[in-house]
């Protein structure tokens, strides 16, 4: 049994949230530079110049990269031999969210869906927990903004629609999303599972660093095919035209019912903000 103090965990999670919102990830920075070099129009190059300058200013000023610091989404792998001393996992993540969003000058974007009244502290956090063997606690955090989340969709295809159906659904979705989700996007695709599982796979896919393809070469090839098809749309940075509509497609797959083909697209804006704590 491994004991982790709630206070230690709290500090790590607060630091993770603050860093994710203020410091651009290295893989995103590299992807911007690579994409800028591949663009030919002045306007597409200019958008990347602004995004690079924005990242530099966020780092030096301490302001968040984007005012939409999102809902706080956590994916937790909770080792069965881990014990958190002095608090529950749920309470630690909730209190860390409240503290980070308050002290870090991050926007509180959570509200009642009917009255639209802001909850005031960016809670509830969206917490997904898997119990896993062992004594490791792995917590991944994502700041998920509303603009790109609104462009996300899930559907239940029929098995006969197959890969072509999946491909058409994903590409059509990104065509319809157009300039809205702050392209160039990272496109998370979840295929399989049940109605609820496909969007979770799609969201989990967004944690994978931009240059890392799926370890299964067959799925990696499908990611590449979707990336090329989405970039052939020509939507470009901010929808102003160009070669980079998405920076990458990340796909996660699991078996599904013999009657079903669930597919979900979780769109991530270019401001892909996430982090990880492993204790």
């Amino acid at each position: 049994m491994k004991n982790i103090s709630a206070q230690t965990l709290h500090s790590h999670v607060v630091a993770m949230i603050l860093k994710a919102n203020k410091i651009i990830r290295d893989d995103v920075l590299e992807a911007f530079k690579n994409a800028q070099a591949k663009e030919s129009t002045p306007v597409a190059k200019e958008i990347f110049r602004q995004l690079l300058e924005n990242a530099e200013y966020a780092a030096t000023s301490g302001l968040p990269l984007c005012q939409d610091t999102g809902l706080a989404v956590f994916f937790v792998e909770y080792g069965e031999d881990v014990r958190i001393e002095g608090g529950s996992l749920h309470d630690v993540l909730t209190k860390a969210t409240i503290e980070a969003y308050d002290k870090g000058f991050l926007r509180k974007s959570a509200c009642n869906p009917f009255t639209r009244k802001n909850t005031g502290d960016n809670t509830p956090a969206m917490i997904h927990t898997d119990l896993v063997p062992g004594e490791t606690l792995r917590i991944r955090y994502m700041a998920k903004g509303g603009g790109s989340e609104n462009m996300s969709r899930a559907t239940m295809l029929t098995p006969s629609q197959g890969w072509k159906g999946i491909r058409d659904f994903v590409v059509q979705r990104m065509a319809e999303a157009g300039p809205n989700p702050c392209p160039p996007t990272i496109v998370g695709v979840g295929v399989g599972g049940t109605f609820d599982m496909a969007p979770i796979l799609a969201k989990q896919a967004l944690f994978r660093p931009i240059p890392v393809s799926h370890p299964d070469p067959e799925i990696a090839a499908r990611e590449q095919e979707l990336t090329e098809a989405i970039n052939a749309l020509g939507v470009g940075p901010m929808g102003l035209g160009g070669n980079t509509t998405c920076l990458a497609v990340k796909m996660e797959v699991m078996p599904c019912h013999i009657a079903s083909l669930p597919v979900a697209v979780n769109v991530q804006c270019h401001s892909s903000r996430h982090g990880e704590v492993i204790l």
Partner: protein
Amino acid sequence: MATYHLKTPLAKEDLAQLQSGDIVLLSGIIYSARDAAHKRMVDALDKDESLPFDIKGAAIYYMGPAPAPTGYAIGSAGPTTSYRMDAYAPRLYGLGLGATIGKGRRNPEVRDAMQTHVGVYLGATGGAGALISRCIKSAEVIAYEDLGAEAVRRLTVEDFPLLVINDAHGGELYVTPTLS
């Protein structure tokens, strides 16, 4: 493609000269409002109450800022996606609104209203909220304070860099996706 230095309030002749693709460096007073504030403004109009600011020639920025740390006029302050305000925008253009500022595509009703009433839609760079905050020299909540980030703010901006997405003549800058 031309570059214009414009000041608010925006005169009809300022707006009419703009073509989609032009660059605007906007200075003066603009007002931030997004979903919840628009609902309240339109509710106010329905009750024959006045809007929290003079709409004639005004520019509304679809934006809800992050909180300002000490020493900053405002926190990160980039645009939100504009289509959510499409339900409200035609009525406001009809009352003399000069420009809306945001990101993402507008619907045909908004584009028609801009042509009918000589208004424009200007695009700011989404996800560049930290950078954009440097153009905002002061910010003051003037209405609906209980809405927090969604309250209406009076912002003083200097050379806020914007692209004309939709002009008053039916022009549209956004690319139509090529579906093979």
